[in-house]
């Protein structure tokens, strides 16, 4: 596969070097602000769930949960907890006015049929061509669990990934080619990370914003296609 650089487009790229990397809630708020008003959105389990806390109620954004609901509200607390009303992570949630319930085949038809505007997923790795790996580490002791990740990845019109750009050990999670088993090929639209927001495009990975680092520094740390473009 031809290697690709992280591309700087002067009209697009903003390097925020006067601050540190984004904290998880800052990242969630950034994503929430970028989701167009009126969108139908699925937030994956784990970190992406945080995005819900930052959505503007006036935006008209409707949350889909794959276990069978549109119009999901915030997490249920105290007396609100109802064992028959949970999200995809099995956490009790609430319903908002205008909510709808449906069975599993309908819920996944919404994904596969291209009806969801945006999904936000976590990832182990994303490749420079938008391949996503987020369900299985392939380790002998790992119990594989895919859930709805493959359906969301191929179905949603825009697939946003929310992750740190590097693992705790410093290994890049944006890579030339994924070494973990794929969830879907070429599906990622945009990467939201603590250090940069990056678009996956036919021209390469375009840096939109960086936080606490320059594009040049990130290229060097990532080792993604240094010296080519």
């Amino acid at each position: 596969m031809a290697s690709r650089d992280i591309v700087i487009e002067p009209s697009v790229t903003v390097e925020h070097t006067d601050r540190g990397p984004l904290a998880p809630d800052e990242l969630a708020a950034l994503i929430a602000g970028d989701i167009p008003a009126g969108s139908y959105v699925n937030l994956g389990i784990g970190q992406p769930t945080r995005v819900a806390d930052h959505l503007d109620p006036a935006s008209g954004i409707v949350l889909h949960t794959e276990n069978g609901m549109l119009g999901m509200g915030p997490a249920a607390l105290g007396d609100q907890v109802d064992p028959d009303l949970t999200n995809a992570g099995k956490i009790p949630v609430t319903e908002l006015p205008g909510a709808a319930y449906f069975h599993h085949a309908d819920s996944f038809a919404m994904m596969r049929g291209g009806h969801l505007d945006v999904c936000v997923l976590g990832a182990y790795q994303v490749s420079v061509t938008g391949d996503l790996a987020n369900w299985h580490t392939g380790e002998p002791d790992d119990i594989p669990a895919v859930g709805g990740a493959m359906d969301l990845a191929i179905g949603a019109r825009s697939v946003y990934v929310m992750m740190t750009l590097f693992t705790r050990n410093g290994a890049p999670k944006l890579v030339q080619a994924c070494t973990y088993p794929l969830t879907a090929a070429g599906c990622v639209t945009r990467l939201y990370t603590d250090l940069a927001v990056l678009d996956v495009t036919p021209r390469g990975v375009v840096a939109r914003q960086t936080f606490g680092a320059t594009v040049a520094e990130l290229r060097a740390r990532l080792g993604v296609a240094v010296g080519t473009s």
Partner: protein
Amino acid sequence: MAEIVATPLDAVAGIADGATVMIGGFGDAGQPVALIDALIDSGASGLVVVNNNAGSGEHGLARLIAAGRVRRIICSFPRQTDSWHFDEKYRAGEIELELVPQGNLAERIRAAGAGIGAFYTPTGFGTLLAEGKETREIDGRHYVLEYPLRADFALIRADVADERGNLRYRKTARNFGPIMAPAATTTVVEVSRIVPVGGLDPENVVTPGIYVDRIVAVGPAGGAPARSAGERRTRGERP
């Protein structure tokens, strides 16, 4: 015609060793715990179970697995923080796992009940979970051929049934019930309550009684109470 039976044990009568059993529910929501408890009491073993998950905690499906009754599980998401009974059996090589992407699982179940011979789906193309399967390019997009998933029995939970077996569900506990009911030779439903014919508004019937064989009233959902987000956070986890 749907038959109203007196006890959960009557409801699961005839489930033989080695049967394929669909069990409704997504986590605890919609899980037919009374029917699963009766299945354990019935003694059936060597079962092939179809469920979204692989049980959690100490009740319901987790208990069935812990009792060593499940030979093989077909599911999409077996890995949870409290799925220790499945984890233990899986790592000991005592249970087989067929992992299916969740939408393919749902559509395979739906296809079985709808008389579809097979279908092409984009989900899973180019991944480990489509290895060895037929593929086809249609209008520039790649698809994988998937086959229907049938069962000898479906055990599901609904909120209200009428005496004809028409069903209404409650909130996200609906999940797999409406697609599993048509996909099994014998469909068994536990409900909170049974109302006379005419007691359900026909406009609000979700599963028509034609798909239902046995109904048993067991009262409100009896599984372990769901944990609230606050309770989870105190355990050091994020929701």
